[in-house]
């Protein structure tokens, strides 16, 4: 491992999304954004829906939408395990906008059989995607 870098792995059930050494990774946890750099104390944390930023000196910042999951930080690096994660360039903005509209409509109508939690999560997902794109 290069000096002052931390090994990062991002894994979803269907693929290993990222694996490599980075300067810093910023994630949205349940208690706010955290930035992890080399030499961090061992930690296990639950992730919220949000944007993950991977920073490397001399390279463009890589951003990805991460929806839940957890991160484990140890001596051998950071492992992020999540159900769904998408790189910024994989996100379909039009589809996300549509999903947002749909979710908002549902929440505004408040029909009896509405699964509020599900609609809210869908809205949250759409907002993360849109926020990352724009």
């Amino acid at each position, binding site marked *: 491992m290069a000096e002052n870098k931390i090994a990062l792995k991002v*894994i979803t*059930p*269907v693929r290993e999304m990222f694996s490599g050494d980075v300067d810093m990774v910023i994630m949205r946890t349940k208690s706010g954004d955290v930035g992890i750099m080399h030499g961090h104390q*061992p930690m*296990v944390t*639950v992730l919220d829906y949000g944007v993950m930023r991977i920073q490397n000196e001399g390279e463009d910042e890589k951003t990805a939408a991460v929806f839940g999951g957890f991160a484990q930080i140890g001596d*051998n690096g950071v492992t992020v*395990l999540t*159900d769904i994660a998408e790189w910024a360039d994989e996100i379909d903005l039009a589809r996300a906008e549509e999903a947002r509209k749909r979710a908002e409509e549902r929440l505004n109508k408040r029909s009896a059989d509405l699964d509020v939690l599900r609609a809210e999560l869908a809205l949250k997902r759409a907002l993360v995607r849109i926020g990352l794109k724009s």
Partner: protein
Amino acid sequence: MASMRDIKRRIKSVNSTQQITKAMNLVASSKLSRAKARFKDTKPFFRHTRRAIAQIMQGSSGASHRYLQKRDVKNTCVMVITGDRGLCGGYNVNVCKAALNTVQDGNATFVTIGSKGRDYLKHRNMSIAAGFRGISEKPQYDDARHIGEKVLKMYDAGEVDEIYLAYTEFVSTISNEPKVIKLLPLDASEFEHIKTEEKDLTLTIYEPSEEEVLDYIIPKYLNTVLYGAMVESAACELSSRMTAMDSATENASEMIDSLNLLYNRVRQSAITQEITEIVGGSNALE
């Protein structure tokens, strides 16, 4: 002796059966290579989740968590993963038998994935809490999450006190084995032998709290295991079908060979008889 026409007809029918089994064999083997690739892709996620849990268990005193504590077993839940379709050798039956064996005594409820398992258990008057079909061949993570949440709800509500999972383990393309594992309550000793590379686990911080991390990770682990088992079982189903269809094709060609032999024999004896008759007839004329 059967008539020539009958034998001819049988040869034809065996031949068309052989063509079907051959086609199924080819389809299964091409699907299998894709299923195997999927199986390989899910492995890292599974391994890392397992390691994360092992690390938390070893580093914490969190053994009092509700998913780790054993309860008096009144009701057992067994999840059974089978295929939706037959013609795959003993694949479906073997895993069903393994599932039944785990619950020889006591009350049991089944959750079936794949219609073959549901049919088998229904036939034996077992209680089935939920049955899922149409997902066995190409399981998605969302399916696993959906089923996992349902089962967890049953556990949380106290309807069941133990959860087992019966699936088929992929040993190699030509062999697989039914397996039953315990999902809940989680057995802490099962994780003790997993080596974690951390030096001092007691220093680990848990955000927001140890309890909440476990609350989140254990259901996640459940879904992961379930998804992994579904993907693995799908590969097994295809490999069993491939083997079964391969031997069916072989049997069909053996059958065709012996029928051909019989056909030739009958044909020859018919010709011999005809010649005898002609010779006999001409002799009588002289």
